[in-house]
């Protein structure tokens, strides 16, 4: 839990949080896609941030995570048809969930962005569609207390390659996939997608699952 002292402090007084961290991002023209300094290993930067939240409830780490992802979650929800009020409510809720559930993130199976996406998607189903979301049973043996560093690195790099491959898809297909994920297409409107660059990342995740089973059994 956050300390009361933190709550009485202005967030911009928090260590590691840049003063502009809570300004409306819309006012910042030319918003940089990556706020991470060049000397930081971008492949695992967010993994380390979440680890700091998990291990020591690091509030500066949470502020950095918030600054980067909260506006993206809200943008994603607005693109998914939520009005501004609901998107704000939902984005706050998602970010609060990240703080509480940091121990459930498994970096050998997902990037931080992917993890946040799944939480935001589930809240969207809750709030917009007022439906329950049946989730698969979690593996009893995971996440491992200390996932293998090489596994984590490989998975995160694979995610970057996926993002690059997605950017290279034909415009028409990319827009269709965006629409599908933003909920603009009903399920029956979704066509069978061919040529999605999913094979390698699937194999990495599959490997991570096998390793988990092997290690934890």
């Amino acid at each position: 839990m956050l300390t009361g002292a933190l709550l009485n402090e202005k967030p911009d007084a928090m260590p590691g949080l840049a003063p502009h961290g809570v300004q409306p991002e819309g006012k910042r023209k030319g918003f940089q896609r990556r706020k991470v300094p060049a000397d930081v290993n971008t492949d695992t930067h967010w993994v380390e941030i979440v680890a700091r939240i998990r291990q020591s409830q690091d509030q500066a780490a949470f502020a950095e995570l918030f600054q980067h992802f909260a506006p993206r979650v809200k943008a994603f929800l607005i693109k998914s048809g939520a009005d501004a009020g609901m998107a704000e409510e939902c984005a706050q809720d998602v970010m609060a969930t990240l703080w509480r559930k940091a121990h459930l993130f498994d970096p050998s199976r997902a990037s931080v962005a992917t993890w946040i996406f799944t939480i935001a998607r589930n809240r969207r189903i809750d709030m917009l569609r007022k439906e329950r979301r049946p989730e698969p049973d979690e593996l009893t043996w995971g996440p491992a207390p200390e996932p293998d560093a090489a596994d984590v690195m490989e998975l995160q790099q694979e995610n970057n390659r996926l993002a690059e491959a997605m950017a290279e898809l034909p415009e028409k297909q990319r827009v269709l996939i965006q629409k599908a994920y933003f909920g603009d297409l009903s399920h029956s409107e979704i066509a069978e997608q061919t040529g999605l660059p999913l094979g390698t990342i699937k194999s990495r995740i599959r490997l991570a699952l096998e390793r988990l089973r092997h290690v934890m059994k």
Partner: protein
Amino acid sequence: MNEIKHHLTDKILLGYAAGTLPEAFSLVVATHISMCDECRARLGAFDAIGGTLLESSDDLMDGNMPAVDFDATLERIEAGSGDEEAEKSAPIEAPESASTLPVALQNYIGGDLDAVKWRPVGMGVRQAILKTSRSASVRLLHIPAGTAVPDHGHHGTEMTIVLQGAFRDEFDRFGPGDVEIATEDLEHTPVAEEGVDCICLAATDAPLKFNGLLQRIAQPFLKI
């Protein structure tokens, strides 16, 4: 883990990852993935697409990224708000025993197989409709070993997962964990294998149409 031969399609996995699949179908998906590492990994890949879209969602806002209230979020954390929602979507620990149903499904039954409230639908077949949103429906089916499910075609799409036993139709065999996806054009006669009674979970986005006259008359009352 038994060998699963019939898996989810990419289209179904994409719909589940995107969150647009009707709840009834999502329950079949969650049940299958609880039993199948291969599809769990494939879902991970489809989730990863969502991750890349979230990461690049700033590109779609023309530089007008919306602000989110940081202080209000901290207050939420302090107040423990979000706990309830987080608990609801929290991964559930799978039970130790391999003979029980996935927890994802137990949540809808309100317990394990022994808690199912079966209703007879004729020919020895029993069913239990589970409560989901109305865009599609899902039910458990209990088919005695060696019994045929009445000859039927389909409106819309039907997705069935075997939980216990096995069934065959004219085309293939489906055992525990296997998923059968039937569309409009499929007319088949599934038969439960000899030995163990067959228990399935079946989702459909339209009522089944039975071909026998009596069954057609009974259909409105049976809610299938």
